């Protein structure tokens, strides 16, 4: 009996953590890219919501999850175009524009959802999963870890790819230079604005994908304000990961598990208030910050618009 209990509990924790962690991972990965390039994106919440809405609508009408994800990517990127034009190109305040994007994303998706579906919330079916042969037959954890929709594996691959791009390629070097010392990048003959624009677009696309995952795979439907602060969590994860994509994965799953552990505990018959559990990751990070006073690493030129020749 108790073995069964732990098994259901573990399965619920792992699959729930993955389910909640993947959108965070995509979004935080996006934030990492733009933070490295020196663009602070406070509008993630709005971009996620736009991605979630557009992705859901795409998947709902096309009957294809992949088109849904693509639509989500497009929606998020579209939302980040505002960021690119206003903050990167025109050099306006990134925090103000970010807040505007969040507010607009919340308002527009809620209005559109209402206009389109009213009070009915149509649902999508469950996505097909891909089991990794061998690994998925590991007892207890195998099925929950290694039998996932294809997009999850692609997401992990994207993290590895980003990590590699950061460390080994010219593009990654340019990106980091744009955040560390944009003048140097400019002097080397690479456009700071272009580098940052691409980074901000990537961020929007990834946040949109995260939102689309949330609505298509996670909930199977779109409800207004469904991100519930996950965009801000992603910012925190990205800042604490200090620009390292692999840490982003760890942070996201830690947050994901804490988001889902309440349900798992309820399955195991232990009733813990969701409020307590949802607070835990934040509490842990605050305690760590107080205890070790470790500075979260931020690019020196973060949130500072680059204007050629300005002093």
């Amino acid at each position, binding site marked *: 009996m108790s073995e069964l209990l732990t098994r259901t509990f573990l399965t619920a924790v792992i699959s729930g953590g993955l389910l909640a962690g993947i959108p965070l991972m995509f979004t935080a990965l996006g934030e990492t890219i733009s933070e490295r390039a020196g663009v602070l994106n*406070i509008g993630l919440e709005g971009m996620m919501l736009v991605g979630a809405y557009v992705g859901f609508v795409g998947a709902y009408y096309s009957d294809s999850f992949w088109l849904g994800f693509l639509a989500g990517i497009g929606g998020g990127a579209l939302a980040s175009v*505002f960021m690119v034009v*206003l*903050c990167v190109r*025109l*050099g*306006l*305040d990134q*925090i*103000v*524009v970010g*807040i*505007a*994007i*969040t*507010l*607009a994303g*919340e*308002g*527009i998706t*809620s*209005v559109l959802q*209402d*206009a389109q579906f009213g009070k009915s919330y149509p649902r999508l079916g469950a996505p097909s999963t891909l089991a990794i042969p061998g690994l998925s037959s590991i007892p207890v954890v195998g099925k929950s870890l290694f039998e996932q929709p294809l997009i999850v594996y692609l997401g992990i691959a994207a993290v590895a790819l980003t990590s590699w791009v950061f460390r080994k390629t010219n593009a990654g070097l340019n990106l980091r230079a744009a955040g560390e*010392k*944009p*003048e140097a990048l400019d002097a080397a003959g690479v456009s700071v604005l272009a580098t940052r624009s691409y980074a901000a677009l990537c961020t929007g696309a990834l946040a949109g994908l995260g939102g689309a995952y949330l609505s298509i795979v996670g909930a199977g439907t779109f409800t*207004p304000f469904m991100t519930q*602060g996950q965009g*801000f*969590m992603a*910012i*925190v994860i990205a*800042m*604490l990961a200090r620009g390292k994509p692999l840490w982003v994965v760890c942070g996201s799953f830690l947050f994901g598990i804490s988001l889902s552990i309440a349900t798992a505990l309820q399955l195991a018959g232990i009733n813990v*208030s969701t*409020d*307590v559990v*949802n*607070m835990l990751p*934040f*509490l842990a*990070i*605050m305690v760590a*910050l*107080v205890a070790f*006073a470790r*500075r*979260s690493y*931020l690019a*020196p*030129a973060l949130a*500072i*618009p680059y*204007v050629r020749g*300005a*002093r």
Partner: protein
Amino acid sequence: MTDVTTETALSPETRVPTERGMPPRRGVTDALDVVVRSIGPVVLALAAGAILLLALGRDPIAFYSNVWKGGIQLTAWQDSAMRAAPLLLIAAGLTVVFRANIWNLGYNGQFLLGAALVSGLGPSLVGDTARWTALVVLFLVAGAAGAAWTLVPALLKARYETNEIITTLMMSFIGVGIANILIKGPFQDTSVNIPQTRVLPLDKMLPAIPGTRIHVGVLVAVAAVLIVHFVLTRTSFGLRLQVLGANPRAARHMGVKVPRLIVMSFLVSGLLIGMAAATDILGIWGYVRANWNPAYGDTVIPFVFLARLNALAVVPFVAFYAVLSTGGDLATQQANLPTDFLLVLVALILLFMTVIEYLGRRRSLGASYLTPGLEQALRHSRRRRKTSR
């Protein structure tokens, strides 16, 4: 370059605007400039909102006349005034920290903790003590809760320069969680099925201003705004805050105890935000339901910037938004839209604001809500940040 930095921040150019809180006027064109930059975004956003309404198949004229009807006509303006009270206090609190270039984004947690404590302690307190004593104590409790909730981010920033955007956001999530735990736990009214606190008796809440339905919390809010404006523009504390915001190194050169000033500004900000919760609960609601989060701060931020971090100039903007949101309840309901449509309008205001800023001064680096001297200094401080690491 560092010498230049110090000089700029301390030059008379910097001090003149701090006395006014606005750029020194140089005739009609400047006044016009201020009008265009402040009112322009609002007008443009309303126009764009009208186009959006048309696109959604609604009648924009009916929508805006409903806003007028629900927000101003007859006695509706009194509801708007009451809605403005917490918004004004939050705006004042944000102005204080934003002037110091500190991002206190934890307002939701600070507000809800204050609200939970007021509504949880309120019913028993007003029963035991005299009405005014109880009300004053509740205001102080809420203010203290809000201030206490900024303490950790403040100390971390003051001592270790930990980024306050992260810490205040995290403390905000924790604060919202604790508020919910309190409401569902010790403060819960067990006689009702829905998790909520006990309801304050109507005759124990903030009394109305004679002749109106407006509770006196509105006066508290206006007084707070006036005091904040005075302190920011007429005292050395205000000047030090502004110099700190423009250029921390210059502030140190001036002999400002920077860590202490950071903590002080955080505490004042939290205090005002906590008191905003007290006015709202003691003036209008009388209780708090679990998971209630009005997120006033999110909608106030645009107006704090539109007012160019001037506490007094915030008042008309907040009044405008209070009318828009009070009347918007009726208007969105009549137009069969979710009230979240108002968020779109606020976002449009913000976007148009930034665009107009850009068109107005192409080289202002997006910081032109600052006074000219400070902007100059800030530009140097940004350079410093870039070079010194």
